[in-house]
């Protein structure tokens, strides 16, 4: 494959990229440490920190007991104490055990203290479905946190972003949540010659197009890419906007692509009702009301706890065919 890779540019998996980002952070800043369940001896539940324990030692690659609320809260306290903790929560479903610390403490302290205590904490967690892990391991609860002022919510979809967003998040004085989709870890991508911190303020157009805008984030980006190729064969030129950050949302980039195509599909693996796709749709409605000829379409997860059986899980999650159908619908204009 590497023959296809331009000189200087490296092809690497999302896992390796996440790993490089972590490695760099640990090397560059003594204050940075990684804390979570099985990040050390086990090698990380998705093998992202494999070998780090040997390299950085148990103080900085800190295996924790099963105590989500305490080790997330300990991350808050350590951040207040001058460290730059990276807390890993294995799966977003488990983060519900730490929701109190994340929402009532991390998100509130700066404001509640009149600007005195900011919490420079980074929390990484795996999210999403597709591995038949069932209803307690497969959800996309990003909007639970994207709803909360005081938090920043990042959803790296590319190798460059998963590598670079960590550095940016660590440089950010605010609590930042990074969601890594479980289906991405083994996916390969191209990393620029000199990768580094990336901005987290702007969404990115991943594919230029004029016929329809596919607005998405995280794992769904690649389904949109595939959908765009199918659409192209049918003569529909799709533009794809990767939100990258769910809080804050980059309204400017959203409205720019809306103004360009006037046909919009939002693709979101969260449950449809009360999801971030609703917020995006609402903002488009509010800010680009007169630009649209047909209503925005949303392609989301079915409103069911994600089931184990393959055919049911597939039916529950957004699929390429669903995106293609939604795109054709808005393009054909029968909104």
């Amino acid at each position, binding site marked *: 494959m590497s023959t296809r890779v331009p000189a200087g540019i490296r092809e690497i998996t999302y896992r390796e990229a996440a790993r490089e980002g972590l490695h760099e952070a640990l090397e560059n800043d003594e204050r940075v440490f990684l804390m979570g369940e*099985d990040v050390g001896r086990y090698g990380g539940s998705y093998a992202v920190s494999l070998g780090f324990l040997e390299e950085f030692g148990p103080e900085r690659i800190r295996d924790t007991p099963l*105590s989500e609320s305490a080790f997330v809260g300990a991350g808050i306290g350590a951040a207040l104490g001058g460290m730059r903790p990276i807390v890993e929560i294995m799966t977003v479903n488990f983060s519900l055990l730490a929701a109190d610390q994340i929402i009532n403490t991390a998100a509130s302290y700066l404001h509640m203290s009149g600007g005195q205590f900011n919490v420079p904490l980074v929390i990484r967690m795996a999210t999403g479905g597709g591995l038949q892990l069932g209803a307690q391991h497969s959800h996309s609860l990003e909007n639970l946190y994207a709803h909360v002022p005081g938090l920043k919510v990042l959803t790296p979809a590319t190798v460059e972003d998963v590598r670079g967003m960590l550095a940016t998040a660590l440089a950010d004085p605010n609590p930042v949540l990074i969601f890594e989709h479980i289906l991405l870890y083994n996916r390969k991508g191209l990393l620029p010659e000199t990768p580094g911190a990336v901005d987290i303020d702007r969404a990115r157009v991943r594919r230029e197009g004029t016929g329809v805008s596919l607005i998405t984030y995280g794992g769904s980006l690649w389904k949109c890419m595939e959908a765009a190729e199918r659409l192209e064969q049918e003569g529909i030129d799709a533009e794809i906007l990767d939100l990258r950050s769910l809080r804050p949302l980059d309204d400017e980039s959203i409205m720019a692509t809306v103004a360009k195509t006037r046909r919009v599909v939002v693709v979101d693996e969260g449950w449809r009702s009360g999801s971030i796709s609703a917020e995006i749709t609402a903002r488009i409605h509010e800010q680009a009301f007169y630009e649209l000829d047909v209503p925005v379409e949303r392609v989301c997860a079915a409103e069911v706890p994600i089931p184990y*059986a393959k055919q049911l899980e597939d039916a529950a999650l957004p699929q390429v065919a669903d995106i293609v159908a939604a795109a054709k619908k808005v393009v054909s204009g029968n909104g």
Partner: protein
Amino acid sequence: MSEAVEPLPDDVDGEYALKLFAEMLRVRRFEEKCAEMYSAGKIRGFLHLYIGEEAVGSGVMQSVASEDAVVATYREHGHALLRGISMNAVMAEMYGKQEGCSRGRGGSMHLFDKATHFIGGNAIVGGGFPVAVGYALAAKMQNTGAVAWCIFGEGAMAEGEFHESLNLAALWQLPVVFCCENNYYAMGTALDRSESETHLVDKARSYKMDAEVVDGMDVLATEAAARRAAAHARSGNGPYFLEFQTYRFRAHSMFDAERYRSKEEVHEHELQGPLRIFAARLQATGVLDDDKRAVLEAEVASEIDAAVTFAEAGTLEPVSELRRFVYVEDRS
């Protein structure tokens, strides 16, 4: 194993002992088949095997009465089978078939069965504690005499839900038997790296709860301990805590390279494995011989084959059913 094997105590009925062995063997072979079927891609998702810990489930289930509830974890195939869920239904569940005990919606980590009050298959570590406490509360308020059997690993004891739930159970004197399957590892985290106090019964006792340590590799010991616990809980004396010291012979799940422990450590425990040890004792007592063993193996093998056939032949629930069971539609 060179050291002399002690025969069964006189007060133990040979047939009963043989039954216990057969149950453990059934679970062992079933789990081995699951591993095989996982590699074959027939079973997906996360798969957690009970191999090495059979004596705990087998011993405990002897004391579980029909009105009792069992609240288990994601490592619950053995408990499900021993509780009386048919092997067909369990295997079909792992195949994701509609004939599965959870209609194929739960998979390996979410086995459920209404008839036997098998309340899951919970993949949130610690998530079952409050549920078991609540079931026991309902039993007490309704005087059903039912006991809630809460099964969990030692790693779960670090979760806040453990603390809150044990306190509630002790404070309200509820009929819960807390069964800790201490296999010394939580994924890759050894007990002494997860608990400041590794003498686990002391934790239970800090809630004023009766607790005992049990050799989880000896099915006679686990069976007897469960009987004591059941008698205690059923007679209104409140909750009881059992620490079963056991060991996981296989990887945590199929994604585990086992970097956190040595092959030797695992092998040493295997030599003291519950089936191996008990088989030897049965043989020393003359209750089991090679022919009998062969018969048992054959019976289990054919039941497993039948279960695989059943699962293979099972139906994939039509996608049109996806939205069913999110809510019960009829008002009760």
